[in-house]
């Protein structure tokens, strides 16, 4: 997810106009741009009392997080987690076989498959959901399965894209060498191809997980109130006023797990490459 950069060259450094102070100011502005929306969230999540004109809370408490410890939130957390994992477990291998097929097929059908893999990007998720909803109801598909199906379709372009860029730079000669050393096709795939594609698979899995974990509109419309996930709880908390503590605490609770996952995915590779 995070591209590995070459260290900035001296001429690149001189490419930014202005002297050092100006560059530091620009850097601070950019950091402020990225961090600004999260500052009130973090403050509200630990605020006890915070009345209007005061810039900082007058007291701090963990009540917002304590309020999260309910059976309802726990159920929603389990639903979100299973939705994210379900979407990722299905969409990651499907994206992989889709890209394999694009590469193995003759050019015309290959292009067609590639086109189909990208189609969900062009259709707003709410539009996809509204049309398919009636069909799901008439076929008696359970809301959870329906949500997973639609989200898998939404996630497929991302997983396919990840594998596509990984396979574009993948050298098949590694497998040829393994085969010439006596490995069976299965062994070559297991010991050569899969390890080389592991980081792309991890990124694809992560993106697909995010699609399920953070989804709001698909779960709302197809789930029809039966499937309550963390984003749905957040949506109803954020749409009513006076709920700042709960909104903030829920936001933090939703962001932390993927951030840990992201750090787990990127730190080992970044460290390995730097060595």
């Amino acid at each position, binding site marked *: 997810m995070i591209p590995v950069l070459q260290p900035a060259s001296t001429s690149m*450094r001189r490419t930014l106009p202005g002297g050092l102070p100006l560059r530091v100011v620009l850097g601070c502005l950019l950091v402020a741009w990225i961090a600004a929306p999260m500052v009130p969230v973090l403050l509200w999540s630990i605020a006890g009392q915070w009345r209007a004109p005061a810039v900082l809370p007058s007291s701090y408490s963990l009540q917002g997080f304590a309020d999260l410890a309910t059976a309802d939130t726990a159920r929603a957390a389990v639903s979100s987690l299973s939705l994210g994992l379900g979407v990722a477990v299905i969409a990651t291998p499907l994206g992989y076989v889709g890209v394999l*097929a694009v590469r193995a097929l003759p050019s015309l059908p290959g292009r067609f498959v590639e086109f189909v893999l990208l189609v969900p990007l062009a259709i707003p998720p709410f539009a*996809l959901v509204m049309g*398919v909803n009636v069909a799901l109801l008439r076929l008696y598909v359970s809301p959870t399965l329906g949500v997973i199906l639609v989200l898998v379709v939404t996630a497929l372009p991302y997983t396919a894209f990840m594998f596509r860029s990984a396979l574009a730079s993948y050298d098949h000669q590694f497998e040829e060498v393994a085969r010439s050393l006596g490995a069976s096709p299965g062994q070559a795939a297991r010991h050569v191809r899969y390890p080389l594609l592991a980081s792309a698979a991890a990124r694809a899995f992560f993106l697909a997980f995010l699609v399920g974990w953070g989804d709001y509109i698909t779960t709302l419309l197809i789930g029809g109130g039966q499937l309550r996930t963390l984003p749905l709880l957040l949506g109803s908390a*954020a749409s009513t006023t006076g709920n700042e503590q709960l909104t903030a605490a829920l936001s933090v609770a939703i962001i932390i797990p993927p951030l840990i996952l992201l750090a787990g995915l990127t730190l080992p590779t970044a460290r390995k490459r730097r060595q």
Partner: protein
Amino acid sequence: MAARRRFGPMTGRRASTTGRAALLALLAVVPIVAVVGVSLTAAGLQSVGLMPFIGPPQLSADAWTSETGELIRSSVTSVYIAAVSTVLSLVVGFMLAAYVLAMHRMGRIVETLSAATIPIPHVIGAGAIGLLLSDSGFLERLLGMPDAFPALVSGPWFVAVIAEYAWKESAFVALVVLGSISRSVGDLCDAAATLGASAGQRIVRVVLPLAVPSLAVSAAIVFVYTLGSYEAAWLLGPTSPEPLPVRAVRLFTSVDLAARPQAMVTALVSVAVSVVVIITAVLVLRRHRSLR
């Protein structure tokens, strides 16, 4: 693939490879075609009354013709939000990328922070922008101007909605640009510097042209995404005019089942606008490539 073809033996085996590839393709293609096909067909049928939620089917173009004015207003609103958000994300995203490339340590911080915003769902981004920009929100307290603070949330210009999209998507644009140019840009800037190009010239003549293809691709993605995104427009926008997603969801969840056909019309119009934008983007990209 090229390597396998070179070493690949007989045509018979290639045919069986193609057959297997076609089977693999089906695994990925069938769910997409099924969901998209069923969705668009059902939306089309419902929009003309042929697939009613209850009651007998009856062909009618009412949903398409009755509220055309409202539909156009919603489309214009959506295109306005998407266009402004896209331009802002591109400008800020390019600045972020250029800064990360140029500054070693500070750039690393900027890069990590912006990557960390990628997993934040839009519904949280919208909640966060609400806490930041609303009346008596954090920014107003920070600036200490309770009387003169403009209505950014629920105001007429969708400022908070646009801010949310620009915030989330600028990080995305920066990552796409960095991923595509970070390998080549250093050497080319060195070369340009040796040939006497000034700092400004290097940005305009080297870094920007290198980034144009990835900026164009991310522009199309950001535009289509913001056009079809519901959460921020619903939480942070005014009640009128309604962007397409908000209008569609309101009609869809309305107790009045007669509103269903109009919800489908709104959904189909959104799909049509997205498709037009994507086709335009593809055509522009093609031309750009042939020009070079």
